[in-house]
Structures are given as structure tokens and as C-alpha cells.
């Protein structure tokens, strides 16, 4: 959500390896621009203050909560949203391990897990926990998510 209707300017954002034109004001948050201007609704709003992680995306390899980032901060950065992931091991693993139910937290979890797998292919339990505790899943008991991420991490070994 944009909290002001201030002056808007045209910028380019690099989203999922495409240059996309957006018209934004400085106060627009990245989540809203992705959803409302670019139609990338895979990133979900859940709290708009960083508590839930449903809006997690990838900026230059780091998972970021897109409700806590201004769109203008993302200029000149590589933005990857869930729509930018195709046939990745973690997506396949989520399906096979039934690591989602309602699916609303799933894009955020997958983006976080995917970045974790890239950055820490041999992540310990502690590291996994430190990364994944930033997202809330209300349907599963986290067991299936744990199995899904570990099965990808361990297959890397």
C-alpha cells in the first residue's frame, strides 16, 4: 500500500531477469508495486510490518521482506519473486513433501528456502532455524517444510 499519493516518477526495476517499467512515488513499498503494477501477486501481504514473511522475495541473493522495502530502494538490484523460480528443486520438494496446505505462506517460504540453499548449501540445523523462523506457517506443523528443505540441502552433499 502506498501511504501517500505524492509525485510519481517512472523507473525501471529488474524483476525476474526482465527490465520492467514502473511509475512510483518514493513512499511506495516494493510489495505493492510488484503486486499492483506488475501483477506479480505471488508475493503475499500478511502484516505489512515484517512479522509474517509471506511477502519474502530475493534481492541479489538475499531474502528480503518486500513489505519492508521501498520500491525505489530496489532500483539497480536483481529482484526475484516466486514467479521467477521455475522447476527449482525446492519447489519440487515442497510438492512432494506436502509442505504447504493453504499455500499462502508458501511463496515466501520457498523464496527464503531457495536463498538459503544457494547461500548455505551445507546449512546446519541452527542455520536453517535462524533463516526460517522469520516466516510464519499457520497450517502445517513445520515438519513438512523442514523435510522439504532438508531433502534439497542433503541432496547437495
Amino acid at each position, binding site marked *: 500500500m502506498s501511504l501517500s499519493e505524492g509525485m510519481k516518477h517512472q523507473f525501471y526495476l529488474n524483476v525476474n531477469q526482465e527490465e520492467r517499467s514502473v511509475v512510483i512515488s518514493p513512499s511506495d513499498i516494493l510489495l505493492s508495486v510488484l503486486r499492483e503494477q506488475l*501483477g506479480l501477486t505471488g508475493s503475499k501481504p500478511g502484516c505489512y510490518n515484517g512479522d509474517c514473511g509471506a511477502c519474502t522475495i530475493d534481492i541479489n541473493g538475499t531474502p528480503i521482506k518486500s513489505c519492508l522495502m521501498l520500491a525505489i530502494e530496489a532500483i539497480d538490484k536483481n529482484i526475484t519473486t516466486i514467479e521467477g523460480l521455475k522447476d527449482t528443486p525446492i519447489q519440487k520438494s515442497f510438492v512432494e513433501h506436502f509442505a*504447504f496446505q*493453504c499455500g499462502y505462506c508458501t511463496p515466501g517460504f520457498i523464496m527464503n528456502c531457495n536463498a538459503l540453499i544457494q547461500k548455505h548449501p551445507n546449512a546446519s540445523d541452527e542455520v536453517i532455524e535462524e533463516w526460517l523462523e522469520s516466516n510464519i506457517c499457520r497450517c502445517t506443523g*513445520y515438519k513438512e517444510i523442514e523435510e522439504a528443505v532438508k531433502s534439497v540441502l542433503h541432496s547437495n552433499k
Partner: protein
Amino acid sequence: METIGKSIIRKEALDKVTGTAKYTSDHLSLPMLHAKMVISPYAHANITHIDLSEAWKIPGVRAILAGEKFPLTGEEIRDRPPIAYDKVRYCGEVVAVIVADSPAIAKRASSLIKVNYEPLPVVNSPNQAYENNAPVVHENIDSYERIKNVYPEVNTNIANRTKIRKGDMELGWQRTEIVVEADFSFSPSDHAAMETRCVIAEIREDETVVITSSSQSPFMIKKLLHVYFHIDIGKIVVNVPLVGGAYGGKASVQLELIAYLASKAVHGRKVKILNSREEDLITSPVHIGLDATIKLGCSRDGVLQAAEILYLFDGGAYSDKAVDISRAGAVDCTGPYRINNIQCDALCMYTNHPYAAPFRGFGHSEVMFVFERTMDMLAKKLKMDPIELRLINAIKPGDTTPTQLAVNKSNVGNVSECILKLKKIMNWDEGSIKQVSNTKVRSKGICCTWKNSTIDPDASSGVTLTFNPDGSINIISGVVEIGTGTKSVLAQMLAEKLKMDVRQIYVQMEVNTKSTPDHWKTVSSRGSFMAGRALLNAADDIIRQLKDLTACILRCSKVDLEVGLGKVYLKDTPDIFLNIKDICYGYMYPNGNAIGGQIIGRGTYIQRRVTYLDPETGAGNPGPEWTVAAQGIELEFDLLDYTYNVIRAATVVDVGKVLNEKTALGQIIGGMSMGISFAGRETFQFDQAGRILNPQLRTYRPLRYGEHPKYEVEFVETPVIDGPYGARSAGEHGLIGMPAALANSLSAAAEVDLNQLPLIPELIWKTKEGAVDDSL
């Protein structure tokens, strides 16, 4: 069985891991207006003045709804103005709604509305509401319209009373040799689904009202819009796409009414309203709280003789579904035991708290916490093993339930088998408590649970099946995909029934009340049961049509035919057959003549012989069957600072028949997780004025990754004879016993009776040391 029981991948799996799954808020269209609510900071106050002048000055504001008297709403008692009028009755109640060109404008304008309040005395708990001189939340209960079988008590805060009168209490107490009495209490909490509620409403030129909502109850929205606003029911269309978590919270109809009124205020233009997290937690209905008093007696041999129970449910400011929740709490007011003498009063109390929606378990985790905690207190007094006490009393065929229904092998699962299996999983014979270091003990706690449904006696479900030209089939059902995977399970049932590949079955995930057959509500773990029965009827309808057509073409009797593997074939000569794909859109003879046409299957199911409860005794048949379970928790408790870690959580549940193993495990484990979270940490913190201090996910903090225990689940399969493939309900049952099991385990570890929730170290400290927190 070819398909039933297997962990078939869910039909919407790919959509959900690629971001293409669409939820209500993902439907973007321009131009659309946006609504924003103004909510009350007070729990109980008169509204003396509302000043809209500054808000109107913001360009882009299209309508403001405030201070207007709209029809009263409420599912059983019509006591709730959709937007507060003259008075607010809970912190978070909607006082005004702004409709504007963008969310930003709406929000800015909402901050400029000035509301003057005159605070009133607050009713801050059900116990307080029950006191003789308590302030009355609703002065004129009697004037409210209500449905049949609701019994508000004038000049009190009692919205409804359900009475259970079974057996002879005098005789029960005479036979009692050991008795325990205890009080329990916990405040309301919340569902906290990750998707906050969202509604889009528009009224078209021909007066058709189109609602898109994140709801479990599309057909109830349609019905209630008709009842409240006298809209022709055929002119109401409700769309529900995928829903991002519900747990009962999206069964209530609230935000849809506000969205409708907002659209009406702008001449029917499309208006979207998306709850902020804070609104979703406290403005929309919450998880019910409870105060309870219980007296339970048994003879020296451990046989339960009498139970006297008072449940005061915290229905909050408006009764809506809380009446029904309190009724459900009466129906299963004890654990799953043979008890011949029961007196229970389950009251739905008005308080100045947010009002209650259904919550996974529908009153059962709440009453099981009370009853099963009391069972452990009784076992302790008896000096009997808590498992032994439960085994002695476990309900069996021939016994009767609290509503005096006779138990048979089908309608109630096998409690004893669940207990015995749990005993093994928990390694109970190794002891239930063990000192593991100077400061830590390991402790186990268990409980038993049961749950029937108490949905409307005439609740029904319908399914339509349509063929594609290649012989594949589309399933159209009114069940909402809220995360439970029910619609994929329906596909499995159909694959089993028609002996076909489940990949040849497509499922319409979205519900549209105009083209989708009615399903009462996606609640009460009844999706697979009711829609499953409807689906099997629809499959029979297809089979009949296929056989009729084939009998004509193959010149044989239809009783000689069989359907399966994509063919209709002669039973005794299977190489004489027709491919379904060649006849499902009609059959054409070589000369061009055609017969048949697209085959469309239809099936319905309506609950059988369910009754209202007798107003004096509660006698009656509440629903089709009881799922039973035994559950346990093992934890490590720190004797110095009263912190603890839940190490493992176990459930043995009699699901009748496992339809999809991983889906069933997911439901049970997900329920357990939510139950541990509710019991261990979740509550709204109310100050003395009834204001909520923690309406955010950083202060209202559900379980997170890494805080989860090891889960162990085993199934018992005692079929319910009239269930689809014998399956019982399972969606809620993982949750129900977790509060009691956690409390029993912690009470044993801390050597003190912990009869309140949530079970945070501070509560243990207060209970153990008699400490008082006077910070509020």
C-alpha cells in the same frame, strides 16, 4: 484399493509453489474503490459524536458510512449492527467506513474522522458477566430476532443456555467416593490465518450483487445477504477463490456485509476491503474464551459416577456463532467416557470482548482442556495411573453420550485402542516423569478427545460431474479449498469409484454460488464426509447413464455392464466394450444418427436423522459420527525458571479410513501445532478497560519454525458405515487434545494444577508461588 489411501499429489500443488495460485486480494482490477475501517479504541462506550468534516476534505473520498442504522445481523440472534450505531461493545469494533479511490486516500481520511466516546463499565470476563450485578452488554435481548432453539435470558448477559440432564445426579453423587472440583479460565485468542480477510463487492445495473470473499461460507453469505437486506437470493453471486487459511475464522459472515454496504454507498461500484493484520486479529471475530467450573466424581475403582459442569463461553460483544459453539461444548461436555449422570450448563455469555467465530475444534479443545485436566486431578487423588483411569471409563458400544445417544460400532471410534496405542508410543511404562538433571525434569501428559459436528440438522452438500471429450471428468463441489486438500481427496474418491487414473480428473478449485452446487459451509471437518457422499452419488449417476447408453448401443441389458478403466464393458466378456470417451458426449452411428449427449452427473447428500437438542435435557442426535483420539505431550521443564521445551507430541486418532496418507498426516500435525501454540502462548491481553494490548503478530506470537516438537501420529481405522469409504472427519482433531495434554504434562512437572491458558512460564510461576501480577 487403487487410489484411496495413497499420498496422491494435490491438484493445486503446482499453482501453490509457483505463485500462480489466486486468493481474493490477488484479483486486481481497475477502476476499483477501496474501503478502510475506523475501529473503536474502547471496549464499551456510547458514541456521542462523529465528526466527518475533515475526512470529507480529502480529494478522492467517495463515501463515508458512520452513525447510520443498518439492519441488525447475527447468525442465530440478530444483535449486531454491521457498523456500530450509538454504542460500541468491543475494542476493535467498526465505527465508520471510508470508501476512496485508493487505499492510501482511504487510510488518510480514516485518520481524520473524529469520534467522541463516553466510556461505560466494561464486562471483562464471562465470570464477571455471570455475576448478578454485572453491567448488561445488551439491554434488550428480547427485542432481537432469533432463529429457533435459542434461549436468551432477559436482563442478563446470557445469550443462550444449553442444558444437559442425563441420569440421576443424586444417585451419581451417592455412588461417588472420590471427588474433585476445579475452576478453569482462558481469554479469547485468534486464528491468525496468514491471509487476512478480504472482500470485493459490487452491485451491477440489474441489481445483481457480486461478492468475492476469502470465506468458508459462500452459500451462507448468499443466504444472509438475502435475509438481512432483502435482496432477491437469485441476484446474489458469491465467488470464493483459494483461501489462505481459515480454521473456522472465515466461516463467520462480517466483512462481506460491510463491503456490500460500502458498494451500495457508491452506487454499486466495485469496492475492495482488505483487513489489516490488526483488524484481522481483533475487529473480525476471534477464537472464543472460556471460564468453567467442574465437579467430577468416581467410585474407588475409578468408575466415573457423576459430572456437574458449568461452561461460561466468552461469546464476546455479539452472539453470532458463539451460541452454536457453546451448544457444541454441551454436546461433548465430557471426555469420551461412559458417564451415566451428567448435569451441564453451557452458556454463551455476552462480554465486552471481540466476538467469537468458530475455531478449529468448535468448542472442543476448550471443554476437553477442562475435562481432561480434571481427569488427571481425579487420577492423582485416586492414586491411579491417568491412562488406567481413562481405559476403565472409555466409551464403548452400548453406552450413551451426554445427549443420550446410544453408541454403536460405527458412530463412535475406538477410544480404548487409541489409548493403548498412545501408551506404547509414549513409552508410558517407562514412567511419566523423570529427573534428568539437577534443574530439569522430563514429563509426559496425555488426554482423550472426541468430536462430532453440530452443524444444522439439514446441512447438505452437492456435487456436479461433467465430462470432457477425452473421457476425463471435472468435479464441481461447493467445498472451499481452505488448505485441507479436500477437493483433491474428492478426486481420489472418484478415481477409486470409476477405476480411473486420478490425473484424468480435474477439480474446479473456485466456488461460484451460481454454478456450483451448494455445500452448507466448509466447516466442522465435514468436507470429505458430506461432499464425499454427494460425489459418490454423482458417480453412481454417471455410471447409470453410461450403462443406459451402452445397453442401447451394444444391445444388451444394463445389468450385464460394468464401468471402469475408461470403458463400459460386458462383465463376462470384457473385450466387448465401448470407450467412455466415445460416448460421454453422445454416440454417433455410422450414418450420422446420434443419441445421448454430454453426460452430467449430479449427487447430493443431506445429513440423516440429526435432531435439535431437547431444551430441557439436551437429548438428541447432534451429527453423523464421533472421531476419537488419544494425545500426548512430552516436555522438558526447568525447575528454576519454569520454562519448558515441548520435545514431542503424539496423536493416535481413529479416522475410520485414511483417504490420503500425507494429507491426513498434514491435517493432524497441523492441528497439533496450532493446539500447542494456542495452549502454550496465544492469548489476547486485555487491560482492565477491556482494551487489547497485543493486536500484532510480534506481540501475538504464533509458533515459528524451530519451535516445533517432534510429531508422532498413528491412525486407527474403525469405519463409520455411512461415511465415504468408511472415513471419519479429521481436520480438527489433531488440535483438540493438545491444551489438555500440555497442561497435564506441565502440571505433573511443576507439581501444581495448571488450569489456565496460555501455559507460559509466568503463569506457572504465579500458580506455583501464589504470586500476583499487578502491573495492569
